């Protein structure tokens, strides 16, 4: 890529990220609650509950401009890679990392793709439920990615993040958001204990995230 193109590209990403954060604030007045961890530019995997397309915008709006520049949301390639426009929005404007859940070729291996991003020193936003939660359950069971990433790169902090109210702001099948106040609760880092089994760790991470919900009785 030429120098000018690269500059334009970086500018586009900055404008998009500042614009979306401002929009998130106007609609939801989003505010981070640091409950067990603190803002830091060290390498992290932020893992959060997922109910709406707006989730990662809300989460990244809570990060500093500097952290946001090196933090990438992991998104579904089946959806965001479908057309050129979607791919442009996801990869170029939002600098997301696209992974395919139904992968066949070795270069499509989601774990390898995510690890290659981590190896550049960047952070990730991960939704371990694997899909948007459209059920009455507050949080679906976790897929294995979180465990695999932590085993492969134990030095990266895993921060649980509970995103509040987004399912009410943008319910299933709607595209216009209702302005409601949202908070993102950042909890204490989770680590895989020595000898801990995959499922046991995932269930523990699941319970830790669920316990961050400040108003569990509101989820309906």
């Amino acid at each position, binding site marked *: 890529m030429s120098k000018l193109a690269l500059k334009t590209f970086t500018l586009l990403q900055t404008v998009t990220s500042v614009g979306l954060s401002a929009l998130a604030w106007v609609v939801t*007045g989003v*505010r981070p609650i640091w409950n067990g961890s603190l803002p830091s530019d060290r390498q992290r995997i932020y893992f959060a509950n997922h109910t709406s397309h707006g989730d990662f915008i809300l989460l990244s709006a809570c990060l500093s401009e500097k952290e946001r520049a090196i933090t990438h949301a992991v998104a579904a390639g089946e959806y965001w890679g479908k057309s050129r426009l979607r791919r442009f929005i996801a990869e170029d404007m939002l600098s997301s990392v696209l992974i395919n859940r139904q992968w066949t070729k070795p270069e499509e291996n989601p774990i390898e793709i995510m690890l290659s991003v981590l190896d550049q020193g960047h952070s990730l936003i991960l939704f371990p439920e694997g899909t948007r939660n459209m059920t009455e359950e507050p949080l679906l069971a976790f897929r294995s990615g979180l465990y695999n990433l932590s085993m492969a790169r134990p030095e990266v902090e895993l921060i649980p993040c509970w995103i509040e*109210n987004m399912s*009410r702001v943008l*319910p*299933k099948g*709607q595209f*216009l958001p*209702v*302005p*409601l*106040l949202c*908070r993102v609760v950042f909890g204490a880092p989770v680590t895989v204990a020595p000898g801990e089994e995959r499922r046991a760790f995932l269930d523990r991470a699941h319970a830790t995230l669920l316990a961050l919900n400040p108003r569990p009785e*509101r989820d*309906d």
Partner: protein
Amino acid sequence: MRHDISILIIGLFAVLTTASIVAAILSARAPKPLSSTLVNLTQRINAWWVMVALMTVAFFFGRYGLTILFALISFASLREFVTLTHTRRSDHWVLLGMFGIIIPFQYWLVWTAWYGLFVIFIPVYCFLLMPAITALHGDTERFLERIAAQQWAVMISVYCVSHVPALLTLEVPGFEGRNLLLIAFLIIVVQGSDVLQYIFGKLFGKHRFSPTVSPSKTWEGLIGGLVSASLLGALLSFVTPFSPLQAACVAFVACSMGFLGGLVASAIKRDQGVKDWGHLIEGHGGMMDRTDSLIFAAPIFFHIVRYFWTV
């Protein structure tokens, strides 16, 4: 009128400067680390600086500035109110309509001074049509609770708040072109009464007014606040169409309503299990924590002025 507004603004800046100096002296003398009351006091005063600055800018832009400012206050209040209530997926379109149609339309009615529709649009048309839309969606789960909360949300956050800029549409003989001062008078006495109740309560408060609703409200704070705010009203009568005695009486009624507004807001928060409405204003909580008194005072003040002072 510019002269009167300038006097009011200079007065407010003098009061805030004094407050900031007093808070700084108290903080310097107090043992470290500072008590939460002192930290909160400083935060509150700083927030007042921002709020007074915003008001000043809005007054500078006159009718445009105030109508837009109060539409935004309605937006922030409604957002806080709806966040606290029980909503369901099927409420989505009604909720969108509250923000996207009711707020702009109500403030458009204020702007065009269409009094007849301004007073009935929400209590008649929205009151009947909103539950109708909810019923058409077919979701009857906690139906009455949902439609009641939606109705209350728009009445409180939109209808009541819109009575503040609506003061600009009143035609008081001999007071033409000076209606901005009515808004300044209302805001200063009602918010002043809140501050004075807080100060009297902190200094002399012993007997709780209503322990089950709000532990911070005391009889001493209430009486001290209302009496001093009424005196403040009399002092400010030079910017109003009222005589000093009339100004004191109007201020007393407005501030009493303001007190009741705070009490009702506390009861709602207690019922919903929260301490503050939101987190918009550092040290104060949400927008509704600051506007609850104005919300109850504005419609009554509006109708008192309209009934007794317009032709």
